């Protein structure tokens, strides 16, 4: 049975809010910040309309706390922010990680660091998305390149959060967040394959909230929502499988942190999303993500039209990085151009991936830090220069 689709004009941020509603989001705690505020504004109407909970909290520290609290009880919870707020969220993102708490964080990036450029786009939070909170951890981060992806990747973000019981970041930016384009969305969410967290059977004598032995999804404990019949003590401390803090032992900590990291890396084939287009096995590949993928693809198409053999790779999950897939796409390449609106953050990751695989491919950074989107001609000039 096919779902009826409707054709809409939405702003990226509005699409993110609609995607959240479609995914079953029923709790949002936010704080105003340019250029993400429209997500909160949209949900301040849509959540009450759909009998969900909307809270404007006193700061982003409280937002993430409220999101964790709500999610623990079973809510599909989300917050949305930009760079300075994303910095404040990190504390409780760490709490969510160590306690396997599903949640979604939208970061609509702007110029940084600090207050930076509130109304101008950038991609400077890429590494922060990976390592913003302290301690060893993995992260799932998705980078939309269109209004449509703002919707569908938000749905995906909720699905990943529920399936892997982890925070998931939607790493958008001011350009994508504020642009409006045509988007076709389903009237109902039937065809969207919504995933809901797995709950344990009631009355189990052997229930342990952080025990993933034999779990349906590798490494992911089937943890009961609090208030549904299993009572345990939880904290942000290193803990054993019952939740009891075990702070005197690196052994226990290693097991816990190991499982938390491994649950992402072990399942990476299911998580990783990417696009690999145009000339395959080309000597030159352009790798771009988020809003920069738009002019990058335009430049590659123009290069092909002019007779050059150029490939195009777009990571959709920035984290975990599509390392195997990048190696494959660069199999015959001498050079990869990485245009991005930061000082070469993902180019650094590409260098790391190539180094780890022992491949010598020249990584050419193209870091435009102006106020405008990188122009297709700028990328095309670089393509011609290195071809």
């Amino acid at each position, binding site marked *: 049975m096919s779902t009826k689709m*409707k*054709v809409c*004009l939405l702003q990226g941020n509005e699409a993110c809010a*609609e995607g959240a509603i479609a995914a079953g989001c*029923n*709790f949002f*705690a936010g704080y105003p910040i340019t250029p993400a505020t429209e997500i909160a504004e*949209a949900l301040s*109407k*849509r959540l*009450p*309309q759909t*009998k969900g*909970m909307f*809270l404007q*909290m*006193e700061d982003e*520290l*409280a937002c*993430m*706390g*409220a999101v*964790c*609290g*709500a999610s*623990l*009880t*079973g*809510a599909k*919870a989300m917050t949305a922010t930009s760079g300075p707020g994303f910095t404040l969220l990190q*504390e409780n993102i760490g709490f969510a990680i160590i306690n396997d708490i599903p949640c979604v964080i939208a970061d609509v990036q702007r110029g940084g660091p600090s207050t930076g450029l*509130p*109304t101008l786009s950038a991609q400077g939070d890429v590494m922060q998305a990976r390592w913003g909170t302290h301690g060893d951890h993995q992260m799932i981060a998705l980078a939309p390149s269109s209004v449509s992806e703002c919707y569908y990747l938000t749905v995906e973000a909720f699905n990943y959060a529920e399936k892997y019981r982890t925070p998931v970041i939607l790493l958008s930016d001011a*350009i994508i967040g*504020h*642009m*409006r*384009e*045509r988007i076709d*969305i389903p009237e109902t969410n039937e065809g969207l394959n919504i995933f809901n967290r797995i709950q344990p059977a009631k009355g189990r004598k052997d229930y342990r909230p952080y025990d993933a032995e034999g779990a349906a999804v590798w490494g992911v404990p089937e943890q009961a929502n*609090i*208030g*549904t019949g299993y*009572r*345990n*003590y939880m*904290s*942000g401390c290193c803990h054993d499988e019952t939740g*009891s*803090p075990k702070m005197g032992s690196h052994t226990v900590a290693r097991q816990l942190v190991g499982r938390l990291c491994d649950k992402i890396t072990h399942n990476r084939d299911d998580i990783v999303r990417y696009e690999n287009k145009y000339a395959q096995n080309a000597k030159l590949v352009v790798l771009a993500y988020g809003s920069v993928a*738009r*002019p990058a*693809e*335009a430049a590659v*198409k123009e290069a092909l039209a002019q007779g050059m053999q150029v490939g195009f790779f777009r990571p959709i999950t920035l984290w975990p990085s599509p390392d195997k897939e990048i190696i494959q796409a660069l199999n015959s390449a001498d050079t990869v151009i990485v245009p991005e609106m930061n000082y070469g953050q993902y180019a650094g990751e590409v260098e790391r991936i190539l180094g780890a695989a022992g491949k010598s491919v020249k990584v050419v950074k193209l870091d435009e830090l102006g106020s*405008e*989107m990188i*122009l*297709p*001609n700028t990328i095309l000039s670089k393509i011609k220069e290195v071809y």
Partner: protein
Amino acid sequence: MALDKKLLRTAEFPTIWCPGCGHGVVTQGVIRACNDMGWDKDDIFAVSGIGCSARTTAYMDFNSVQTTHGRALAFATGMKAAHPEKHVFLLLGDGDCMSIGGNHFMHSCKRNIDLTVVVLNNFIYGMTGGQVSPTTPHNAISTTTAYGNIDEPVDICKIAIAAGATFVARTTAYHAAQIPDLVKRGFKNHGFSVIEVLDPCPTGFGGRNGFKAVTQMYDKLRDNSITIEQASKLSEEELEGKYVIGVFKDSTREEYLDKYKRMVEGIKNSTAPKDLSANSNYKAEPLKAPRYECRLSGSGGQGLLMSGIIFCETMIRQGKNAVHAQSYGVEARGGKSRSDVIVSDGEINFPEVASADLLLAMTQDSYEEYRGGVKDGGMIVTDSTFVKAEKIPGRRCYEYPITNYAKDTLGEIRSANILALGIITGLNKFICKDAMMDTVLGRLPKKVHELNIKAFEEGYEVGRKMLESKEAE
């Protein structure tokens, strides 16, 4: 009354606290209160922060959640808002509540959300070894006030009242029997309740401040506590060093989640996105090229954002693909404004104008900045009210006193942007006039429909004449 030991999480005992620490007394008082309420353990969320006080919830066989420093109220707010039927209370230390958590404490009081907070005030940061806290007495010694605390302590109850909490009380760990009663009153208050309990920290505070035994600290609480009535008869000086205990506030104010529920029940509309599916009545000529680029430029306040959105929506109603991208300065009014609309029957990669098919310039500045970006054979439309335009070889240049017409003839300067849209529609046969008009009327409030129909029609006629004049050339 016998304490039901089934309420204790005995696997975690003995407690981590020092001998005589008041936290254990408070924990027992809170558990007794829960015992008396007769609640199902599964329905109780016991939330704490960081510090010695955080461990209180470990010893209670409820859904016990120790959160991050200062943020317990945020977590508890999320839990309660997601499940208002659950019983949610918090045990917080003085530092956790009043220092790092101060902002959340104030806002929770203001919200009057149905939570009960028991503040275990031992005047010190105990877990980390005894540093000064917001409630450490003046002149007291701590590890970070080796020369005596130069600061004055804050009164948690006064702040709670000022910020809007509806039940506020104080007692001490000496007055152990009072704890369950006050906590129960907090539970029963349908709003934000604060019960502050002064409790001894023998290690972090006591040893450094002249106490030889923890019993002396309890004795001091006994000897220096006075009731609210007794305090009312004393001068400021006489109150020095006294602990005023009792119920400071017991009032009613509509609880936050009740208000939210009431609001939700009153909502009948939906702002779900509208379906703009192609209307077969919208007929127009096809696009002449795979990609059409239009740039609307001028200053903030000229309505170019709205025009761009309307144009973009019209194209989608006509079954096309379209993107709108906006760029502006930080000023709320004035400053630059630029709306780009890209139209295509296929995929659109670059979502901004690279080489414009049509440039609308409503200010001299924007005309000069963007005129060079118009492609060969492209159109430039300028508002002669503000722009002195030149003939540019290879470009089709048109001008019209858009703003003056809007202001003087239509009587409303803010209809200029719709007049401009009319011109653009008249100039381009791939735009269906009815589709554009429908979008204009859909996006603008009813009270300005008549005005904007006039503006659009005028603009359309002007645009058509412009198109025919050039085609005749």
